[in-house]
């Protein structure tokens, strides 16, 4: 069977409205995203920047299917091989199995459950590629080495007792093992020193997994233009008060770095 490569896969967001529980009044829901449109195609990197509270993390959590984030209007869709699939009502694991992946801003600790056990369980559930334990271990160790993390991490509890920087690297590690098609990076650069940032960036762009065979769509959410020097985005979007107020090329990030969000808001 031959498929036309012209039909690229993409993540399509239309008029997205998202509400969450109001921290100050439990009965009320507060609207955070107020009509957001975005399309990210295979092989593209989009950066979303914006001040605190503009809705960046809300967007990624809603895309991944966090149950606290309620989609009150609009659609999240993925298009693969010309087929459109709506994600609105799917649970996080179903979205993950369709190729979504989120690197958490604050990775969650699961004491006693090892990375090795979790990744093995997920791979066994997928059942698509038969991989022996030895082959899996080989793959895991290779990737850890590239990220400069001791392979003992495999046996340790998920995110348990790792430094902030290690946790971020381990998010990228999981991403490379799971090989998603749509990648959501939530402030992957926060808490990383410059050397770790370089390692993380190199691994995201690692030609060993990102090339002709595999070319994911990536959304990077960040406060700072710093990481965008290492991972050049195709597009930069400014998010403010739940809407994208400006989109442009990578030059936009530089302007932002110099003049801040206030100026752009005032335009």
């Amino acid at each position, binding site marked *: 069977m031959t498929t036309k490569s012209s039909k690229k896969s993409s993540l399509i967001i239309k008029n997205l409205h998202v509400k969450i529980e109001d921290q100050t009044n439990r009965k009320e829901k507060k609207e955070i995203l107020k009509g957001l449109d975005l399309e990210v195609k295979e092989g593209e990197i989009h950066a979303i920047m914006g001040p605190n509270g503009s809705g960046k993390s809300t967007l990624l959590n809603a895309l*991944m299917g*966090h149950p606290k984030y309620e989609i009150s209007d609009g659609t999240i869709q993925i298009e693969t091989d010309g087929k459109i699939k709506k994600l609105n009502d799917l649970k996080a694991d179903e979205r993950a199995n369709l190729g979504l*992946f989120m690197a958490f801003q604050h990775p969650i600790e699961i004491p006693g*459950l090892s990375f090795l056990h979790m990744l093995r369980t997920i791979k066994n559930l997928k059942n698509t590629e038969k991989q022996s334990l030895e082959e899996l271990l080989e793959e895991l160790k290779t990737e850890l080495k590239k990220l400069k993390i001791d392979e003992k991490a495999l046996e340790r509890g998920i995110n348990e007792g790792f430094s902030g920087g290690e946790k971020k690297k381990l998010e990228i590690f999981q991403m490379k093992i799971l090989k998603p098609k749509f990648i959501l990076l939530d402030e992957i650069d926060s808490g990383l020193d410059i050397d770790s940032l370089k390692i993380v960036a190199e691994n995201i762009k690692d030609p060993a997994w990102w090339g002709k065979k595999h070319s994911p769509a990536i959304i990077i959410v960040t406060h700072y233009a710093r990481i965008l020097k290492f991972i050049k985005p195709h597009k930069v979007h400014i998010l403010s008060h739940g809407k994208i107020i400006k989109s442009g090329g990578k030059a936009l990030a530089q302007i932002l770095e110099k003049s801040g969000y206030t100026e752009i808001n005032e335009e």
Partner: protein
Amino acid sequence: MHNDSTKKINTLFTNYKYGFRTETKSSFIIPKGLSEKIVRQISKIKEEPKWMTDYRVKAYKEFVKRPLPDFGPSLKEIDFDDMHYYIRPQDKTKNKWEDVPSEIKETFDRLGIPEHEKKSLSGTGAQFESEMIYHSIKESLSKKGVIFDSIDSGLKNHPEIFKEYFGTIVPYNDNKFSALNSAVWSGGSFIYIPKNTYVELPLQAYFRINTESMGQFERTLIIADEGSFLHYIEGCTAPIYSKDSLHAAVVEIIVKKNAHVQYTTVQNWSTNVYNLVTKRAYAYENAEMIWLDCNVGSKITMKYPSIYLLGDNAKGEIKSLAMAKDHQCQDTGGKIIHAAKNTTSKIIAKSISKDHGNASYRGLLKATKSARGTFNYSKCDALILNKDARSDTIPKISIDDPTASIAHEASIFKIDDSQLFYLMSRGLPQDTAVSEIVNGFASPIVSELPMEYAIELKRLLEIETE
């Protein structure tokens, strides 16, 4: 998500698979109820020396006199008159599985005991109702002088060692149930490990109650002589009946200078069994005692394995895992008494409770004046799976040693939505994510178990996916 995950949690504890019963013809049953006459009758059947008959009668009187414990869960529903105190399943203990009556052998086959023995054990004992029906040890070990026998044979064949230690670690009047056990004890293991003898593979005993309204009162005595090494494992199951059964065991362990003993329990009684057990070990100079205690089954368990650190530099460790579901109550914990110099101890207790289950920790940590340089670390973690479940941590600490270093930590966990979301975002379905989190919580204890038991315990924690 929360309500949904509660539903998933409900399927977490799989059905009890050992609830089957076997039709057997017992060779002797004493009618229900307890009296001095019955106590004397048990002693007579066993052809015991007079001192033991007297001991039993004295203990019976103590049992009648003593009130029920004034702490922990209520035991008022136990009907002591509606129990069988002695059932003999066959004429005597066999040392070949082929010789065990086929209907009893079938029970142990279904539990996987003979198979397990061949693979990874130095010796096996099996108790059915009141008697050990099977006992066997590797010849290489018996040649070295290792004794692994039923406790009744211990009294008959090794009366000097038996009399020297029996009832010295757990006196008959220690508590109501040690008195009951001392009055009607039957079955259990008698173990002696000679000086500097290393028993590489574990010795195992397996206990099975088969009859309705049965009381099982096994008694185990372990003596590890200087510089010896032993790992002893016990497992237990019973059929499910509408009437309650009672299991009141006493375990006494002597760990002499430089010796090492680990005693591992995987308790999986059916939920109509009261499990009221007294376990205690004396550890002498530079000795090490470890209790690894897992409680999954029973209706009510009250059990606080104890270690008396009596010699300088002795070490003690109590690691436990308790799971309580429905209306089960696991009132477990541990006691460590530091009574010599530079003694160290560690307590790691983990509990999981769901529905109306109650898994609580009750502990005592004591350092006497003669203890100097005592070091203890205790950690109690409770995982509570839903709002009706309960867990209490009741640590009692009494320190007379001014140089002691004591640290106690207690934490309560629940599965939160962020943990579930994290695992689900990686592709794990919600029910798998829940069971992975529970398994992760239990893993520091489960990973210490021998392979067969670790797999079994993990299975108990896993969700049936179909």
